[in-house]
């Protein structure tokens, strides 16, 4: 067991090095609060980072699947905005009779179904009509954004406060326990699906060599379609947290989130070519990005410099991975 752990670390350890480095850097360089505590390591700060990264983190989980299957999904940012707006509209504009829980449940359902349908559209066109994933999801990215703007009249839909259903929703879904445990449980489920189920095995085979996988009789189209549906669905769930945290449905939000998610996946060791990758890596990559931003913010580094530093990290991460020659890791 320990043996397997070291072997895994040897082949897939790069993102962990990054994580450890950032943690140490952050601790060492951390400012001290007025009462002397190390700000960076304070539980409040660390859980802040987890909360701040939860949306990207959730999207990145599903993105890992899509990328392992040799695809890509650029529409997740737009789906997030769409989901946030649908949720806000359902809670604020559409008022059925019934308890708060019911109204919130219906809003969640609407957002989830919407996200899954968009994912299904992506998957269908990519697998049946054989449009390239980059092209199709780019189109969806633009189309869904336009649809969301139309739906809201390009106006933000603010959620209420106090005991209103929307206020309750915002309170619950933006709370640390909820967001962090949602991310964590989805990560665990994703990890298990990828490493322990038939679906996960098929996905990796298809991503590495689609021809051979087809010649083995694997259901290539269905597996890919499922990955895209999953991506749309998880982007929608991230949108729920987003709506709660920003207390509104903003049709112009989420721009660039797809790139952050892809960056997290890539830093975590998944190759854009498909076939290899891990959820543990993606979670690590998400944490690396979040902690890095946190360290920079604690030092009041110019926010524009932040972007350049992020770029350097991404390049460094991918460069380190070139020396990785392990077998598809299973832990």
């Amino acid at each position, binding site marked *: 067991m320990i043996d397997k752990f070291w072997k895994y670390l040897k082949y897939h350890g790069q993102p962990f090095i990054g994580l450890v*480095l950032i943690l140490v850097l952050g601790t060492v360089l951390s400012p001290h*609060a007025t009462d002397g505590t190390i*700000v960076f390591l304070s539980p409040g700060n660390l859980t*802040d980072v987890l909360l701040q990264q939860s949306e990207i983190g959730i999207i990145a989980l599903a993105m890992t699947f899509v990328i392992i299957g040799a695809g890509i999904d650029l529409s997740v940012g737009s789906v997030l905005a769409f989901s946030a707006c649908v949720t806000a509209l359902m809670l604020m504009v559409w008022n059925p009779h019934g308890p708060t829980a019911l109204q919130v449940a219906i809003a969640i359902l609407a957002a989830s179904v919407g996200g899954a349908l968009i994912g299904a559209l992506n998957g269908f066109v990519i697998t049946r009509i054989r449009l390239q994933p980059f092209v199709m999801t780019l189109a969806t990215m633009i189309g869904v954004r336009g649809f969301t703007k139309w739906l809201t009249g390009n*106006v*933000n839909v603010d959620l209420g406060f106090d005991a209103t259903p929307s206020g309750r929703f915002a309170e619950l879904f933006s709370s640390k326990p909820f967001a962090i445990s949602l991310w964590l449980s989805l990560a665990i489920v994703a990890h298990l699906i990828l490493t322990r189920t038939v679906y996960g095995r098929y996905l990796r085979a298809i991503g590495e060599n689609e021809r051979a996988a087809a010649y083995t009789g694997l259901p290539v189209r269905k597996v890919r379609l499922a990955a895209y549906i999953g991506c749309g669905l998880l982007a929608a769930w991230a949108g729920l947290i*987003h709506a709660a945290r*920003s*207390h509104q449905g903003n049709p112009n939000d989420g721009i660039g989130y797809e790139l952050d998610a892809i960056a997290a996946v890539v830093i975590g060791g998944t190759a854009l070519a498909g076939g290899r990758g891990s959820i543990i890596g993606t979670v690590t990559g998400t944490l690396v990005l979040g902690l890095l931003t946190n360290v920079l913010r604690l030092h009041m580094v110019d926010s524009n410099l932040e972007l350049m530093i992020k770029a350097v990290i991404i390049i460094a991460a991918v460069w380190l991975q070139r*020396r990785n020659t392990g077998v598809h890791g299973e832990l």
Partner: protein
Amino acid sequence: MSSSGWRGALLLLLGCALAGCTSESSPYKYTVVFSQCNNSEPYRAAQNAAMKKLWGEQPDVHLVVMDAQQDSVRQIAEIETAIRMKPQLLIVAPNERAPLTEVMKSAMEAHIPVLCLERDIAEPFYTSWIRVDNRAIGRLLGQFVVTCLAKKYGEPRGNIVELAGLKGVEAEANRKLGAHDVWDTYPKIKVVGEAVANWSQSLAKDRMTELLSAVPQIDVVYGRNDPMAVGAYLAARERDREKEMIFVGIDGLAGEAGGVSKVQEGVLAATCIYPLCVDKAVEIGTHILHDSSFTPDKTYTISSALVTADNAATFYK
């Protein structure tokens, strides 16, 4: 990863540890964090400059300015991090009302005094709000417009086009309401077009170009801040239509690019000085820092003034 990679990482770690040891504790007694929503607007850039100058006069204060780049989610995260720093004072210029409400509540709950600058949030989770009466400004300008139209046509009638800022902001809503308070009483004064330009000059130019094609007769362009009004002017000038209408804005900033100078040049017919609110904020903030028994008012209102071609020279700085 190879062993050389591990060695390299280890060296880097040691280097950082050494670097860390050399960082000393802060010589400042007070830390003031100012969370600005968007550095790139001229009004806000002026606010930042004023903040730095005024707080800079107090040697025991360390001022930190954060730029949220007009992204509410980013501002929320920045304030969350700022709270961890346990500053003695937090000043926030919120990007939007609803999103920033919860996080400012958290700051209050963490026993940090919070000053809300110029814009407000959905619930009063702050120590003080330093504001300008935007509705009064709207009325001032509205009245000015009525006077101009009356002069032009002999009676108060005409077509008005409005350029709006970010919809979720109090200033936007009140500036509009104030003007309409006046205009709604004149049936022959009509608002024939409105576009959202998010306080930006370039967006306003684009929106105005569209409006120029859509609306044949425009008498007044009411830009809810100076940059938008100027942007509209530029768009009209491209079509050689700038003489047929007047442009009014709000901000009245100093300097060559500011609203006052534009009035003097004849680009804008009028503007309203929109105080930066920084003087008051620093004044109240200093009291809060030094005097623990000081209880500030919940709201401080700062007055404005109308600037036209007649009195522009007196306002120009």
